[in-house]
């Protein structure tokens, strides 16, 4: 543990960078995934091919994807955030579509029959009722992105990946742990926080 103690400032900075990468990516990913997820939920015919495409992107080797993105975005946070946002699409779109499909028909019928515009139906009824499953998807995506954000080390975006990969490369367990323990703690914290939110949302929307 002496490595962690002598490098705590570095680890602190890397942890913050890591979080920064994850949250920037989540925000962008959500802005993309929400319309895609809605589209997939509304038009079941496109759902399978769309998810297939996103699954294929998800399966792309990250280093190759990063190398391509560096060509357009340069080094730093941008290519990593882009990779993370791309990877998150698969998880988010699938969950958003599933969440929307799971909303009870009766409440949607009532919302429409009562005179809500389609926008009001979505924001006031559909989205809140979909929120437990949706938050579940967000939880999965966040935990996955915390793991994948270690790629940041590969393109000068910082993050805990720096320590993990360098430590692994030179078989320096303490350095690897100094990167992976904070990453694991971040993942656990995110998981716990989202689970709590999920519970609240579930309690609030149970029929």
């Amino acid at each position, binding site marked *: 543990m002496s490595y962690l103690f002598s490098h705590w400032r570095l680890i602190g900075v890397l942890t913050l960078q890591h979080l920064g990468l994850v949250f920037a990516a989540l925000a962008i990913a959500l802005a993309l995934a929400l319309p895609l997820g809605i589209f997939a939920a509304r038009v079941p015919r496109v759902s399978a091919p769309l998810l297939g495409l996103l699954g294929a992107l998800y399966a792309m080797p990250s280093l190759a994807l990063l190398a391509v993105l560096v060509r357009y975005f340069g080094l730093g946070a941008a290519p990593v955030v882009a990779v993370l946002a791309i990877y998150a699409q698969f998880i988010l779109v699938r969950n958003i579509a599933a969440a929307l499909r799971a909303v*009870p*028909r*009766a*409440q*949607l*019928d*009532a*919302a*429409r*029959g*009562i*005179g*809500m*515009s389609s926008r*009001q139906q979505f924001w*006031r*009824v559909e989205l*809140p*009722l979909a929120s437990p499953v949706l938050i579940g998807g967000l939880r999965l995506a966040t935990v996955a992105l915390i793991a994948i954000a270690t790629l940041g080390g590969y393109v000068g975006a910082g993050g805990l990946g720096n320590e993990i990969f360098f430590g692994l490369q030179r078989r320096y367990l303490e350095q690897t742990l100094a990167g992976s323990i904070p990453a694991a703690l971040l993942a656990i914290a995110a998981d716990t926080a989202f689970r709590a939110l999920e519970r609240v949302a579930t309690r*609030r*929307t*149970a*029929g």
Partner: protein
Amino acid sequence: MDGVSFEIPAGSFTVLLGPSGCGKSTLMRTVNRLVTPRSGTVTVGGRDVASIEPTALRRATGYVIQAVGLFAHMSVAQNIAVVPELLHWDRERIARRTDELLELVELDPQRYRSRFPRELSGGEQQRVGVARAIAAEPQVLLMDEPFGAVDAIARRSLQDELLRIVRTLQTTVLFVTHDVEEALRLADRIAVMRDGKLLQYAAPDEMLRAPANTYIAQLFAVKADLRRYDSLRNALSVER
């Protein structure tokens, strides 16, 4: 649906009666434009509904469904307030109206205002559903088998209350059911439908006395005695 044409007097209680799949719900849903007829027109108060913006039309039309469809993430008060809010009523007026409606459907505002739908019985939920539908004082109230999912005892009292409420408010009601007994209890006029066609449109007594065909005669035969007893009881309860 084909060749269905009839007129409903303002302030009357009309029941669309028929087996499931006969088109009665679909017919009802053309009134608030949840369904658009391929041809033909629906007019409310002399206006073709096709000329009214759907959301405006629906906000001015009460709508109650069997599954109730109370919004699970909103309290009872919030559910009732949905349409007034869509109509931008001020907050105080909404609060007053909410309590007034809860009293009208015989739920104590103090106790029920901030409860959530999952904390209510089926009967209580449908009372809130009715309150929500009439919150903005609609001229027309559409009810699609509203009491189909509640038990027989609760259904009786809900029916009685519904009659009391709509008579007080002078609302025009269009009520869909496949339950002959319910139709007889509630209706000023009954429209019997089968296979997308309107078989007869008449007051209950007339229908019992002069059924248009043997199908209708059979439909009402077993209920004739019951009707006599019920109408007596109804008359008494309304007078009281």
